[in-house]
Each structure stands twice: as structure tokens, then as C-alpha cells.
């Protein structure tokens, strides 16, 4: 099966600065991959190479088997940049018409209606971009990325300007896309968001992949918290040790009120991986 996105030994240098130092990465068909890393880790560069906006110094990237940046590859992607702007004089509907024409989509009005409903902008169809809030523009950006139903969606910080309700809309949208079999590369600083929706997480640091796995794989046991009549204590062990520990405490005459298996959060894993680095 051809990966939606495949990067091999991907390197990018800007003068003496190395943005990517040999990245291998795959986004499977229908997979939702979260890309994490501190500022300057190379996340946006990786996404831009996949879109064809930046040329790699070495290595190669492919979109559904086509060389990244080629017209064939660009037919198969939808992209929302971290810093984007749409011409203010376009209405939401006109902007989608523009992108339909450029993407060669023959979805017509039905597609536009569906996309605007999907991002919660059905009521703002005729509103000009310049009259929209930043959050509305970001949702419109997601809608334009979905024009032509691309098999791979590249989202660079898609929720940075959204309020909690807007973020939940995007999360629901991502889950809907997963159901439809769309692959998504999600670059975000919001760890909780990535933990909630992504199938797999890749952490980049100084242009290299330092950790990857599913959110569950990246969560390590950190002990068992047991509340008894003598207070709360933390014991070593994992989920499988709970019956034995409870049994031992009961035999010792303790009254057990509650048990909680402690695991590291994605945030713990992230901080451990990047060593507290912020830029």
C-alpha cells in the first residue's frame, strides 16, 4: 500500500542552518499523524517540502507515490499554512470557487455548501473575508484545503486562532475525515488536541525525529495511586499489579477507598523528548 506521505532521509539547509537533518516519516492511508516539536524543530519546513513550497537539500518526499512538489502530488493535497491570508474582498463562497477552479474540482455548489457546513460557516457564505474574525478565516482556510477532496491534508497549526468551541469543531472535523479515509498530517503545539485525535505522534527536535508512536505507546506507567484509611500512597507497578497490591493491603487490614493507575501524559513524553527546549 502506498503511503499518503513518505519522506526518506529528508534534509533541508538554509545556509549554515539545518532545518531538517535526515527525516524518515510515513503517513499511512487514512492515518492522522501529529507532528510535535519546539519552535525551529523543522515541522513547518517538513510540511512545506510536502507541499512543494520548499525544495529539499537532500533526500526525497512523495505524496501518494508522486514526487512532492510535482503537479501530480499537488493534485492530492490540501494545505493550510500557519501564516496565511486570503484576499479580503472575496466572499467565502467566491474563495472556494477560486480554489475549485485551481484544483480542477468539479464539485460545484454542492461541494462548497458541504464544506462550509462542515466548518460551521454555512451562514457566512456571502460574507467577505475582511469582515470575518481570525477564527472564521481559519475555518475557511480548512474548508479551502478540503476543496477537491484531497487524500492528504497538511495542516500547519490549524487551531491557533480558534476558541475552545472552534477547536472542538476542528477535532470533530478531523474525526470525520478519518472516517472518510483522508490522511492528515497535523502540525500543532496543542498537545491535548494531538493526544485526543491523532493515531500516531512524531516528535521532531533540531530537524530529527526523536520519538514516535501512538499516544498510548508514548504513555508510560508511572505507578499506582491507592487511597486507604491511612492516606494516599503511590506504589511501583502498572495496570497488571493492581489486584496483587489491593489484595496485600486488604490482608494487612487496610480499607481501600480508591485505586488509580498513573501514566505519563503526552506532555510528559514531549518534555522528556525535547529536554525543555523551546526554540
Amino acid at each position, binding site marked *: 500500500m502506498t503511503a499518503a506521505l513518505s519522506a526518506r532521509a529528508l534534509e533541508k539547509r538554509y545556509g549554515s542552518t539545518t532545518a531538517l537533518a535526515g527525516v524518515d516519516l510515513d503517513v499511512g492511508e487514512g492515518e492522522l499523524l501529529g507532528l510535535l516539536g519546539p519552535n525551529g524543530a523543522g515541522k513547518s519546513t517538513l510540511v512545506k517540502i510536502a*507541499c*512543494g513550497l520548499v525544495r529539499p537539500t537532500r533526500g526525497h518526499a512523495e505524496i501518494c507515490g508522486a514526487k512532492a512538489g510535482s*503537479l501530480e502530488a499537488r493534485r492530492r493535497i490540501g494545505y493550510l499554512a500557519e501564516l496565511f491570508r486570503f*484576499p479580503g*474582498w472575496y466572499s467565502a463562497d467566491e474563495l472556494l470557487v477560486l480554489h475549485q*477552479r*485551481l484544483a480542477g474540482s468539479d464539485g460545484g455548489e454542492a461541494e462548497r455548501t458541504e464544506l462550509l457546513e462542515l466548518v460551521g460557516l454555512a451562514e457566512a457564505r456571502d460574507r467577505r473575508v475582511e469582515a470575518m474574525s481570525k477564527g472564521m478565516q481559519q475555518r475557511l482556510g480548512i474548508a479551502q484545503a478540503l476543496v477537491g477532496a484531497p487524500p492528504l491534508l497538511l495542516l500547519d497549526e490549524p487551531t491557533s486562532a480558534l476558541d475552545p468551541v472552534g477547536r472542538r469543531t476542528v477535532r470533530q472535523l478531523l474525526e470525520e475525515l478519518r472516517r472518510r479515509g483522508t490522511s492528515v498530517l497535523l502540525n500543532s503545539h496543542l498537545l491535548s488536541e494531538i493526544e485526543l485525535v491523532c493515531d500516531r505522534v512524531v516528535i521532531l527536535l533540531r530537524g530529527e525525529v526523536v520519538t514516535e508512536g501512538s499516544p498510548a505507546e508514548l504513555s508510560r506507567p508511572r505507578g499506582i495511586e491507592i487511597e486507604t484509611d491511612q492516606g494516599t500512597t503511590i506504589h511501583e507497578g502498572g495496570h497488571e499489579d493492581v489486584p496483587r497490591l489491593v489484595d496485600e493491603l486488604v490482608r494487612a487490614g487496610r480499607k481501600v477507598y480508591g485505586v488509580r493507575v498513573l501514566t505519563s501524559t503526552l506532555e510528559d513524553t514531549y518534555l522528556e523528548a525535547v529536554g525543555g527546549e523551546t526554540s
Partner: protein
Amino acid sequence: MRAIPTIAGYALREALRRKVFLVVLLLTAGFLFLYWLANHYLFRDVGNLGSPSPAIEPRTFAGAFMVGLAMFSTLFLGVVLAIFLTLGVVRGDAERGLLQPLLVRPVARSTLLLARWLGAIAVCTPYVIAVYATAVVITGTAGDWWPDHAVVPAIELAGGVAIVAALSLLGSIFLTSTANGIAIFMLFGAGLVSGLLGSIGHALNSDRLEHWATIIAWAAPFEALYQDGLREITAETVGLTGYLIQLGPFGGANTGGPAVRLWACAYLVVVGLVAALAFSRRDL
């Protein structure tokens, strides 16, 4: 190819929305009004002026001078419009985040450049031709003088503006909007100055000045086209009147004709190819 009308339409709509277009229209209205006023008084008085020689036709001299002046002003206004419509197409729009959503679509970068150029000249060239034609009609009706050749200069002025738009697009790949605008205006100014120096060289019979003016005119063919257009408006004016017009600032170049026009077309193609190559290698 379907993308070309789409992006050209996008550029056209952007152009018509910009305030610079309104400013240019207001300036044009002001210019044409002053031009009409100048023609009205000039041709009213020109009959009362005595001619130093019966071989000099004052009406022809005044008419050619006025249309030459109008061509200079038209070229200037057209160039202002062309530069402001194209100065930020690549780097400027990329810095504002406007370009990336378009570039990730299955559209070749060279197609985007071509479409943006077409969008710009779809505004600039009709503008230049309309202003030039209005000026010719004003002079013709006020002074009963018409250029010997009126159509070719209009096309050459439009061609000059199209070349400046292409150079501005090329500059926009490397320079920020402000730096590009300054660079192209300076290039335009240098071209005009070299043309004037060429005229002075011709009047003074200075081969060296004329030689350098010719080189610069070929290196910046918008200037060569403008000079050729000036030459065309009095192409059939002979004798002392023709000679005196040639000595003036709007006399036109000695070089010109089909070779300059062909070179201008080739130059456009070369600028387009260089721009396409540079843009294809640019990280955004």
C-alpha cells in the same frame, strides 16, 4: 491552462480594488485637463508667433512637441500603474501569506507568473492606449495637427509598459515590495535619462553619447520603444521642421524600427524565462 484566466481574473480584480488605480485615474483626469488647457492656449497663440524661417511650420512643431510630451506623461503614468500592480507578486504576497494557498494547487509556477503578468497588462495597456489616444485627439482637435503615424506609437507605449511590468515581476521574486518598487522606478528613470542624453548627443553630434544611449536603450527596451514611438509621430516630417523636432527632448531616437520591436519581443521572452527559472528555484 485553465488556471491562466482564473489567476489573471484574480489579479485583475485585485488591481481594480486597489486605491492606486483610483489615484492613477484621478491623476490622469488632472493631466488630461491640463493637457487640453495647454493645447487650447498654445494653438490659439501659435498662429500669432512669427516663424524665424518660412521653412519651419510652427503648428507641426507645436503639435509634435505636445504629443511627445503626452507620450512621456502617458508612459510615466502607465509605468506607475504597472509597477504598483506587480511589485509584490512573489515575495510581497508570500510574506503576507497570500501566495502559498495558490501555489500548492496544481498550477505551475510559470503559469502563475504568466497569469499575473497578463492580469497586470490587461489593466495597464488599455489604460496607456486610451490616454495616448485621448491626448492625440485633444491635440488634433485643438491644433488641427495629427501624428504622421498614430497607431504604432500607441502599441509601442503599451509594449514599454508591458516590459516594465515583466521586469517588476522578475524583481518581485528577489526583492521585497518596497525595494522592488524603488529598483524598477530607478531603472525606468535611468532609461529615460539615457534617452535624453542620446538626443543631446545627437544635437551636439557626440558619437560617444549617442553610442551609450543606444546601448542603454537596447538594454532597457521600454526606452527604445518610447523613443521609436516619438520618432514615428513625425516620421514623415522633413526639412528644417523635422530636423528641429529631432533635436528636441521629444524628438525620438535615430535607432528604432522593426529591429527594436523584435528585440523588445525577444527581451520579454528572455525576462519571462529568467523569471520562471528563478521562481521555480525559490523556497517560500
